[in-house]
């Protein structure tokens, strides 16, 4: 593992340090889709943009939208909607080429916002003949959930021709989430690392498909 890390690091340094004759790659933009986000009721599109003419580095901007109702990750949503944005710096490790293929490393930051409405039972104060009680009632409750974090990935990307790519990646990340209200909710949406309100470290991974133009 240590050997692997040294090789990756050396390759990374080499990709920055030495400008030499490189295999060219004309497209400067890519558009991709990350299918596994549909599991969470979302769609993520990746916009890849080459940011260097001398080294194989790309900026990946990944807007997301979420729309879901029903059960997911142990919650029963009346309605979940949300948006997200990942921004990553991606560095291909294969030397002497500007083609976005082979092993790569990427790191970046992410932000997600969710508006969650659930039909819940919750406790409210009531008064009966001047005597105060607390009763459990049923109704719609809404909470706003904000999540920020960062990722570091290692991955491998294949190119079909010079247009279509298939990319797998895995790595680690950190998430910090916050609900603006939790009264009446019996969850922080933090049941597991794939949950909408997860806070903590996680193993991240997935695949994406797309094309360059």
């Amino acid at each position, binding site marked *: 593992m240590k050997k*692997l890390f040294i*090789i990756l690091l050396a390759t990374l340094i080499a990709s920055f340090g030495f400008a030499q004759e490189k295999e060219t790659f004309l497209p400067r933009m890519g558009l991709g889709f990350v299918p*596994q986000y549909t*599991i969470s009721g979302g769609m993520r599109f990746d916009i890849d943009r080459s940011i260097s003419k001398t080294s194989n580095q790309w900026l990946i901007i990944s807007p997301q939208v979420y729309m879901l109702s029903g059960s997911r*990750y*142990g*919650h*029963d949503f009346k309605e979940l909607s949300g948006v997200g944005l990942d921004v990553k710096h991606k560095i291909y490790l294969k030397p002497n080429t500007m083609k976005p293929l082979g*092993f790569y490393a990427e790191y970046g930051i992410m932000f997600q916002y969710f508006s969650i409405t659930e039909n819940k*039972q*919750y*406790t409210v*104060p009531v008064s009966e003949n001047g*005597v*105060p*009680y*607390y*009763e*459990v*009632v*049923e109704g719609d409750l809404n909470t706003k959930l904000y999540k920020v974090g960062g990722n570091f990935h*290692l*991955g*491998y990307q294949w190119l079909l021709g010079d247009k279509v790519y298939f990319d*797998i*990646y*895995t*790595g680690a990340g950190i998430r910090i989430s916050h609900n603006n209200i939790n009264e009446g909710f*019996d*969850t922080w949406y933090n*049941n*597991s*690392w*794939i*949950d909408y309100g997860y806070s903590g470290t996680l*193993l*991240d*991974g*997935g*695949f994406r498909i797309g094309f360059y133009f």
Partner: protein
Amino acid sequence: MKKNLFSVLFTLLCIGTGILLSSSEPVVYGDYTPVYMERSEMENAVKIEAAQPLHKTGKIYLYGQYILVNEKYKGIHVIDNSNPEAPINLAFLHIDGCIDMAMKDNILYADNAIDLIALKTTDNFASIQVTDRIVNIFPETESPDGYWSPYYINQFRPDNGILVAWKKKS
């Protein structure tokens, strides 16, 4: 080397994306919901009130000329039965969480939710006075249809809240 790296990536990928975890979140069904009170409010709410119509009655207790009828979780109706041909609904003893009572020598013993209280009464139930209270002697009552476990009861419990009643959903 490349093969090993692929194996590592593939394994991590499986870990990273293949698992959909689910966990249970409290979902409470049933026809009843709990009613809570703060302890101080519950203790202060024990009082004699004007006669009230009988709704959801429970135990019936005969004491001299009086018939005591429990109004579930609310208190006790006092009925003057000195003329059995025309009983008089005399008063209502407001005791939250009350489902049982007994009486001897003008002392009424009743459950005030999880407490046992002793009430000294005048001969005609014109006044009452709590003379003794043994706190936390009874367990909280279970939901009539058995759907609420102690975990869920605590989930909805306000600070210092004591379960005093079960209310049927409308």
